[in-house]
């Protein structure tokens, strides 16, 4: 596999985490323009762990996920009472606050005579863990996708589980859910925490993939993009946001010839798509139909395999 393709796929994998993060919140009915904040926190935390404290990658990723998850829980509480647009703008404000705080954040340690660490607007360079430990691009790609697969598995199981149903119920009608005895507030904070953790894992991976992060990357554009991926790919399944990322970044790279016009075309296409499919390509209807079709096929398969095979014994 050539390096270019590995690079694109790695990018897709990492960004998928933020897309899934926004998607999870969307399931509970809340729009977030701010998941990039947890992506950033995960990136910086994991980067600091390996580059400054000498931790292993695994420990660093867990640390990054934990810090961003905790941050998400912390911010989830005061914003509980907010809904819809108010919540969305609060997430935007929060994310921008985080970004600016990283612009002011300096934490540098001298290692082998070199100053390593986050340096405000200059960013955080030399997150060289994978190079120092001879992990090649392909191996890292495998790591990204194993973690992504695990996350997807978790999400798909969640969607089928009681908790997943509860999340969707809250998304449809909070008051009704409350009346059913569901502790809505606690569940929403839980969703926020999980979403933050997801974004944090992605951030940790991102920091090590690119070896360099700066606050500018974690801007509103990233946040709204993350939300958009779910809307484009479809809100009916966790594969939806992945599809969205694939379409955007995949399209981005494949239409090199139209590089200068990419956003013009893509923007127009997205707008048109949303007119006919306001909940994305793989929306709840499509997923339901696929599920029905699948059940029919597996039923047919089972029936044919149970047919008596002529005269045996």
């Amino acid at each position, binding site marked *: 596999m050539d390096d270019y393709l590995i690079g694109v796929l790695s990018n897709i994998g990492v960004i998928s985490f933020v897309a899934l993060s926004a998607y999870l919140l969307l399931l509970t009915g809340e729009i977030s323009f701010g998941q990039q904040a947890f992506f950033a926190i995960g990136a910086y935390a994991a980067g600091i762990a390996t580059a400054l404290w000498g931790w292993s990658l695994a420990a660093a990723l867990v640390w990054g996920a934990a810090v961003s998850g905790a941050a998400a829980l912390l911010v989830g509480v005061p914003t509980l009472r907010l809904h819809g647009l108010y919540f969305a703008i609060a997430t935007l404000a929060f994310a921008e606050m985080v970004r600016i705080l990283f612009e002011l954040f300096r934490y540098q340690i001298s290692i082998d005579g070199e100053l390593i660490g986050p340096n405000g607007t200059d960013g955080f360079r030399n997150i060289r863990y994978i190079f120092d430990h001879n992990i090649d691009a392909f191996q890292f790609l495998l790591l990204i996708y194993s973690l992504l697969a695990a996350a997807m598995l978790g999400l798909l199981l969640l969607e089928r589980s009681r908790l997943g149903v509860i999340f969707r119920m809250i998304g449809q009608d909070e008051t009704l859910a409350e009346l059913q005895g569901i502790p809505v507030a606690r569940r929403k904070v839980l969703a926020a925490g999980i979403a933050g953790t997801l974004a944090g894992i992605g951030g940790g991976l991102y920091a090590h993939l690119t070896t360099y992060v700066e606050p500018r990357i974690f801007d509103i554009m990233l946040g709204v993009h993350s939300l958009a991926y779910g809307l484009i790919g479809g809100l009916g399944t966790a594969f939806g946001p992945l599809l969205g990322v694939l379409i955007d970044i995949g399209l981005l790279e494949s239409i090199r010839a139209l590089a200068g016009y990419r*956003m013009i075309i893509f*923007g*127009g296409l997205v707008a048109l798509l949303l*007119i006919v499919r306001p909940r994305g390509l793989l929306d709840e209807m499509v997923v339901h139909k696929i599920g029905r079709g699948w059940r029919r096929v597996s039923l047919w398969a089972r029936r044919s395999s149970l047919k008596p095979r002529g005269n045996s014994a």
Partner: protein
Amino acid sequence: MIDLVQNTLDGVMIGSSYGLLALGFTLIFGVMRRLDLAYGPSIMIGGYFGTVLYLYYGAGPLAVASAVVLGAVIAGIYVERLCFAPMKAGAAIASMVSSFAIWMQLEQAAILVLPRHTYPFPPLATVAPLEFGPFLVRVDHLIMLVCALALAAAVHLALYHTRFGLALRAIIGSPVAAHLVGINVRTAVLLTFAGASAVGGAAGFLVLAVDQQVTPMFGMWATLKGLIAMMIGGLGSVPGAVVGGLLLGIVEVNSQWYFGPQIRDLVAYVVLFAFLVVRPRGLLGRAPEPAMPPKA
């Protein structure tokens, strides 16, 4: 103390254009109950119309202002037709994401046509600042303040003393009931978009003329300022938009003076976040209903 007053003075003047931006934003939100993320970029397109007129035809400030307003209105109508008009009632998030897609589209279109990072804008005034005792007032700031207040007054007049304004306030009050009294809501919404874009265009012209330049980043900047001012002042409140803008201006100029530009932006967001957590209705807005806006 003198610094504080000087900053507050400057803040009020800069804030007046934030107020105009918020005004346009709030009018759109009032009739649509949805956020138009392409609002700032539409104004930026207007700005590019203006700079072309200035750069290649040497037009004066009034002509440039008209071009900015015209460009903003055209872009605004484009956004309304593509992102809002065709959407069904429950597709609020789809509209917002669609407007975001068009934001990106408009930004790239602008960069393609005019690829440099910055383009010049005619100044509002070239005379020396006025002195009032220890305080300095830039003449272009003063013009901006006067124009912004005049425009806000005009919007108020239109809203409260014209038939169209009545229709607009009816739609803001209850879209269903507006249909029932025979208001053509779709047309009214389109016209509101055009009007709000025009107001935004005027605000944009004032800011760009004071800045004497336009950049493709102006779109996001305008959207953010309008959004923050609108939320602080109160979602859906016309006087709130103006008050929010002024307050934002005062807070920003003082923060920048005492703490620098990064802290200035940080403080703006902290104030916004604080308002949302403590008093989401803002200064003059109505208390948010539990289920507003409708979820996707």
